[in-house]
C-alpha cells in the first residue's frame, strides 16, 4: 500500500489546525491587555521627576568621573581586613546554617518524618527563614548582640536555613526506596539507615547545596556592613558617607573580583566532587 492510498480517506476530514482555540486566543489577548494596563498604571504612580530624569546622564558621567581614578592604595589600608572578615562571616554563617538546617530538613522530608504536623512545622521554620531578608536578620541580630561580625554571621546563618533545609528535604524525598528497604530488611536501626541508606544518596546534592549557598553568602555578607553587621559593607558605607567615590569604586571592584573568584571556585569544586 502506498502512502497516498493510505492518506486518501483522511483527506475528506477537515484537517485545519490552529494552535489555540478561540477561548485560548481570547485569554491571551486579555493577558496582553492587562500587561499594558499595568505598565501604564505604574508609570503614572511612580512620580518621575522630569528634571531629575533629564539630569541623569550628566549625573552618571559626574559619578564616574569622581570614581576615577580608583583609589587602589585604599585596599591595603581600609579594605583588606574587612574583606577577610566578610569571607569569615560567609563561611561561618554557612557552616552554622548547615548544622541548623539538617534537623529541620529531616523533619520536613515526608518520607523520613511520617507526621504531617511535624512536616508542616518544619516547613514553617523554612519559610520564615527565607521570607526575612538577610539585611533584616542582620538588623535583628545587631539589636541583640550589638554591631559586628557575630551579628553578621548569625544573620547569614538564619537566612540560609530555609534554603539549605528546603533543598535537603527535597533531595531526601527524591532518594530511592530500594536500598532503604534492603537495610530495613537487614534489621538496621534508624541511625544506621540514615548513615548508610540516605546519606550516600543525598551526599552529592548536599555538597552542591553547601557550596552554592556559600557562594550566595559571600555576596550577601558584602552588604551586611550597611546595617552595622561587619564585613566589607562597613568600608562601603564609610566611603559613601564621606563622598569618597574613588574609595567606593575600589570597594565595589573588590566585591566584584571576590564574587567572580568564589563563583569560579565553587563551579570547579562541584565539577571535581560530583
Amino acid at each position, binding site marked *: 500500500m502506498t502512502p497516498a492510498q493510505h492518506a486518501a480517506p483522511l483527506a475528506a476530514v477537515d484537517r485545519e489546525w490552529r494552535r489555540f482555540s478561540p477561548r485560548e486566543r481570547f485569554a491571551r489577548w486579555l493577558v496582553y491587555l492587562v500587561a499594558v494596563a499595568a505598565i501604564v498604571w505604574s508609570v503614572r504612580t511612580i512620580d518621575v521627576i522630569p528634571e531629575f530624569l533629564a539630569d541623569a546622564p550628566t549625573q552618571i558621567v559626574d559619578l564616574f568621573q569622581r570614581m576615577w581614578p580608583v583609589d587602589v592604595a585604599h585596599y591595603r589600608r581600609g579594605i583588606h581586613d574587612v574583606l577577610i572578615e566578610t569571607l569569615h562571616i560567609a563561611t561561618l554563617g554557612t557552616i552554622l546554617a548547615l548544622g541548623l538546617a539538617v534537623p529541620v530538613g529531616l523533619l520536613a522530608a515526608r518520607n523520613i518524618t511520617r507526621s504531617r504536623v511535624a512536616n508542616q512545622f518544619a516547613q514553617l521554620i523554612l519559610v520564615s527563614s527565607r521570607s526575612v531578608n538577610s539585611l533584616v536578620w542582620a538588623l535583628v541580630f545587631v539589636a541583640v548582640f550589638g554591631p559586628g561580625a557575630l551579628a553578621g554571621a548569625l544573620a547569614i546563618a538564619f537566612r540560609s536555613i530555609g534554603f539549605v533545609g528546603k533543598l535537603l528535604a527535597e533531595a531526601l524525598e527524591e532518594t530511592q526506596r530500594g*536500598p532503604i528497604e*534492603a537495610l*530495613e*530488611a537487614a534489621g538496621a536501626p534508624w*541511625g544506621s539507615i540514615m*548513615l548508610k541508606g540516605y546519606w550516600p544518596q543525598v551526599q552529592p546534592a548536599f555538597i552542591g547545596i553547601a557550596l552554592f549557598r556559600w557562594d550566595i553568602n559571600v555576596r550577601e555578607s558584602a552588604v551586611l556592613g550597611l546595617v552595622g553587621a561587619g564585613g566589607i559593607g562597613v568600608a562601603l558605607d564609610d566611603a559613601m558617607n564621606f563622598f569618597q567615590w574613588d574609595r567606593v569604586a575600589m570597594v565595589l571592584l573588590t566585591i566584584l573580583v571576590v564574587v567572580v573568584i568564589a563563583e569560579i571556585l565553587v563551579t570547579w569544586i562541584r565539577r571535581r566532587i560530583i
Partner: protein
Amino acid sequence: MSQTDTAPAAATAAAGADRSLTIRHLDKEYVRGKAVLRDINLTIDGRGLTAIIGPSGTGKSTLIRCINRLVEPSGGEIVFMGQDLAKLRGAALRAARRRIGMVFQEYNLVERLSVMENLLCGRLGYVPVWRAWLRRFPQADIDAAFALLDAVGLGDFATRRADALSGGQRQRVGIARALMQQPDLLLADEPTSSLDPKTSVEIMELMARLTGARDIPVVVNIHNVELARRFATRVIGMTGGRVVFDGPPAALEPRHLTEIYGGEDWL
C-alpha cells in the same frame, strides 16, 4: 546495643534450631475490601528451596514481604523460630529481621557505596550505629565479607563502587549481603527478573549452592517456571491471592500451569 555475635560459627550454631516457617490465615488488603492475599496457610520446612510461581499482581511479592514485614499483614500469624513475626515491633522486629536475609529484583544496593560497604550493610542489624558511622566494623565481619566475595566470584571487586557493576554482578553482591546476616531464612523477591537468561541460571545456581552449603531455607518468588522446576525442592503456585498448587516440581503438570496462569496458548 552491643550485639556482637559476629563469629562465623554462629551460623552453624543456630543451624540446630528449627528454621521452619508457619503461616496461618494470612490476609492482606492494601485497600479495604480488595484482598491481595486471602487466608494463606503454609508450612515451609527449615531446609530446601521453595519457589512461589504465579502471574504478576497475584500477591507473591506481598506474601514474601509480609514475612519480614516490609509489608504489614492485615491479619494472621507468621511463626518463625518460635515467634509470631506479625506481632513484633521496634527492636524485637529488627532483631527478627536480621535473622532473615532478603534478595531483591532490583538488587537494592546502595549505589554510591563500595561493594565491601554494601556487604557490611548486611551487618547493620548487629553492629551499633557508632561503629557503622566510623566504619569500624568488627574484623570478623570483614573476614566474612571477603570470604563471601570470593564465594560469589567477586573477590577482586571489594573496593569497586556498586554502580560500576553489571546486573549479574550486582545480584551477586545482593546475595552476599543477605548471607552476611548469617540468616536462618533467605527470602528472594524475583531475583532473576531483571537479568538475562544465562545470568538468571547462574544466579539461581549460586543462591541454591550457597544456601544449601549453609543449610538455610530459601523462599523465592519467580516468574520463570523452568527455573523454578530446575532449582526448587518445592513449588507453590498462586493465583488471585490464593495457593492453588503445592508440591514437588516433578508434580507440576500443564493443567496446573493453566490453573495458575490461565489460558493455554502460551504453553
